[in-house]
């Protein structure tokens, strides 16, 4: 082989090795794949003021210190909400069995504060899982929080009586212990997938910190 060809070959080999190394390094920084998506960078959200199921303040501080799974819906929802809350409860059970539950909390935010009072919500969420919390608030406060999470909802025109349905984005949002939006689990959510996705997120976080 001629000298120039050897040099070319060596250069190519070095480039290839460098490329592979780069690929390995960047792959470990890629967000893990989950049944939904992980934000490349966790997103800080602006303060909001809701009330929890005990009528006490539920704000940004309430999301700090724990990983929070947040689902938006309403109690008069016959299908999507009971289905998703049942799956979220299943996820909590799985995480508890895996010893990953102590730093987590689960919050159902009702977009229907007209019908869903804190007291009603307290009974509603406890039914799905005794660990579940709930929150709601006036339209302005609610809209502000929901919008930042990427949740839209709307009431039918001229809603009256007690049986109207509310269209709503049916995601489960995951906030990290710094109250930053970290990931979203998209419908149809399954308990096993939420638990598995959360484990991947925890694992990738510890790798990044190391």
């Amino acid at each position: 082989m001629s000298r120039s060809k050897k040099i070319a070959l060596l250069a190519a080999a070095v480039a290839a090795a460098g490329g592979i190394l780069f690929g390995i390094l960047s792959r470990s920084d890629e967000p893990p794949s989950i049944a939904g998506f992980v934000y490349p960078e966790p997103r800080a959200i602006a303060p909001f003021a809701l009330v929890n199921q005990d009528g006490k303040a539920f704000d940004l501080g309430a999301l700090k210190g724990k990983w929070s799974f947040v689902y938006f819906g309403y109690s008069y929802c016959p299908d999507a909400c009971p289905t998703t809350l049942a799956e979220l409860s299943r996820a909590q059970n799985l995480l508890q069995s895996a010893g990953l539950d102590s730093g987590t909390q689960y919050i159902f935010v009702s977009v229907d504060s007209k019908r869903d009072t804190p007291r009603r919500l307290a009974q509603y969420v406890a039914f799905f899982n005794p660990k579940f919390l709930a929150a709601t608030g006036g339209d302005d406060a609610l809209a502000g929080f929901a919008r930042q999470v990427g949740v839209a909802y709307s009431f039918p025109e001229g809603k009256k009586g007690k049986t109207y349905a509310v269209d709503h984005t049916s995601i489960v949002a995951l906030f990290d212990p710094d109250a930053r939006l970290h990931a979203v689990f998209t419908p149809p959510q399954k308990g096993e997938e939420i638990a598995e996705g959360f484990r991947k997120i925890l694992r990738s976080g510890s790798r990044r910190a190391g």
Partner: protein
Amino acid sequence: MTQRNLWISLVFAIGASIPAAASAQGIQVADAWSRPTPPGVDVGVAYFVIRNAGKSDRLLRASSPVAKRAELHVSAVKDGIMKMEGLGSVDVGGTPVAFEPSGRHVMLVGLKRPLKEGDVFPLTLTFANAGPVQTSVRVRGADGLDKGHTMSPSMKH
């Protein structure tokens, strides 16, 4: 027991005696199930599978003595938003038509009493050709599983 409670109990008892898979003119409604209702909630849901071995038909409406009204609905995610829409009718041809979570479902409005895990109640589906087909709906656990298979320890009451 008040007369109303007695009547409601009777409805559930009758429900338990109806065969789980009912059929008429080739239409078979099977695997009907529901969820327990949380305290204070008077809307419920019913899911099932319709199989049609006969000529094409259409599901027109539903009814149940456990609720004031039973409506046909479908949940669907459009542009990321979960919407629930009423269905005027549902075509039932050769392929099984599933009413299942996050999809088509019967919404029970104005439940006369909460649905509890283990309850069985009657549901009538009325078809354009086959007419009314009655089935019995089993109320599963809150996690959608049948009694005895729940993940969390369940306390019988």
